[in-house]
């Protein structure tokens, strides 16, 4: 296989090399091998493109998380009231949740419970975080999905079955939460 790859990547192939590549391409063994190569090649996969995008835009997500905490009243005051263990719980839950719906449910329940027990500022903190997730999806995840050609969630493409729009959104939101929870933890000790 490496020798085949090396021959195909030759920039200016000689006529003999062209003949060899063409002969290989029409041979019965070519189709399964070339198909395997295209599937295993990560270079053009949407998931690879998206993960690369996420790495290059990680700082933007970190800046957004910091800005959200410091410029939103519900968050900047709530961060001093919510206990540190909750930030760790948020961070760990975001890592473990398989879908964005699960993560949203976790945060929504936190808010509902605090409101039911009369802790309105803590409830506001969780509700505001929930609304921030939607704006992260709109401002970061959606453009990234488009830029990286990530297939839609209802796509029936077998090749992209494991990575679609929903997964991309989850990864972006998860990264945001990581920055958000860490900054909350830091601020609560610094200003608390």
């Amino acid at each position, binding site marked *: 296989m490496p020798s085949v790859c090396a021959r195909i990547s030759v920039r200016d192939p000689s006529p003999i090399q062209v003949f060899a590549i063409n002969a290989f391409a029409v041979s019965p063994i070519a189709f399964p091998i070339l198909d395997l190569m295209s599937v295993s090649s990560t270079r053009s996969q949407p998931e690879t493109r998206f993960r690369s995008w996420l*790495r*290059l*835009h*990680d*700082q933007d997500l*970190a800046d957004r998380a910091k800005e959200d905490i410091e410029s939103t009243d519900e968050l900047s005051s709530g961060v001093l009231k919510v206990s*540190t263990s909750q*930030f760790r719980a948020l961070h760990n839950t975001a890592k473990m949740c398989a879908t964005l719906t699960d993560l949203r449910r976790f945060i929504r329940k936190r808010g509902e419970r605090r409101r039911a027990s009369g802790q309105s500022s803590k409830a506001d903190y969780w509700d505001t975080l929930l609304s921030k997730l939607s704006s992260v999806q709109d401002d970061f995840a959606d453009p990234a999905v488009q830029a990286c050609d990530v297939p839609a969630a209802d796509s029936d493409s077998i090749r992209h079955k494991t990575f679609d729009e929903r997964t991309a959104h989850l990864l972006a939101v998860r990264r945001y939460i*990581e*920055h958000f929870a*860490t*900054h*909350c*933890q*830091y601020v*609560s*000790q*610094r200003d608390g």
Partner: protein
Amino acid sequence: MPNTSIRTADDARQVIQRRIDEDVDGRSDAYILYDNYQVKPLARAASDCFGTDSNGRPNRTQMRKLERVALSASTYSEILNYVKSQAGRDTRTGEEWRHRGFAYDLHNQLEDVRSEAEGRAEKILDGIERALLKVYQQEDESKSDAEKRLSNWVRHEMRLRCVQRYVGHLAAEYAYFVSDAYADTPGA
């Protein structure tokens, strides 16, 4: 005379990467040489924070961990998040990091190094020739998209590399400061 060896996007990437490396190498010594980067005061503050272990030897674990995190990080925020999460812990380790505001000073210093690195990234981007950008540009990509992609990449590389170097210097300075070699230095 145009450089004919730059024919593919990978070639262009290598040329730009070399410019980033040269800039980071050139700047690295400044972190040690100039006082405004606070490497020495922060290293001394770290030795105050982390103290000694039960055998009376310097407790190097935290600084070693910081250096390891920095060297293996793929983004700048991984390094900063590590400092933040250590400072945000409500345990003895957290108290050590917050002792006399060490974690906050380190956080602010890393942010300063980052913003300076981003400023220099802009200069590198300004110096990229039109021909080089054209090679870097992908076939199905507009010029503005290619510029944006290039800008994100250069800024990311500069942030990460500069802060990695800075933390490397800080960890080395700390190791020297807590070592016997420093105690034997005249005037120490």
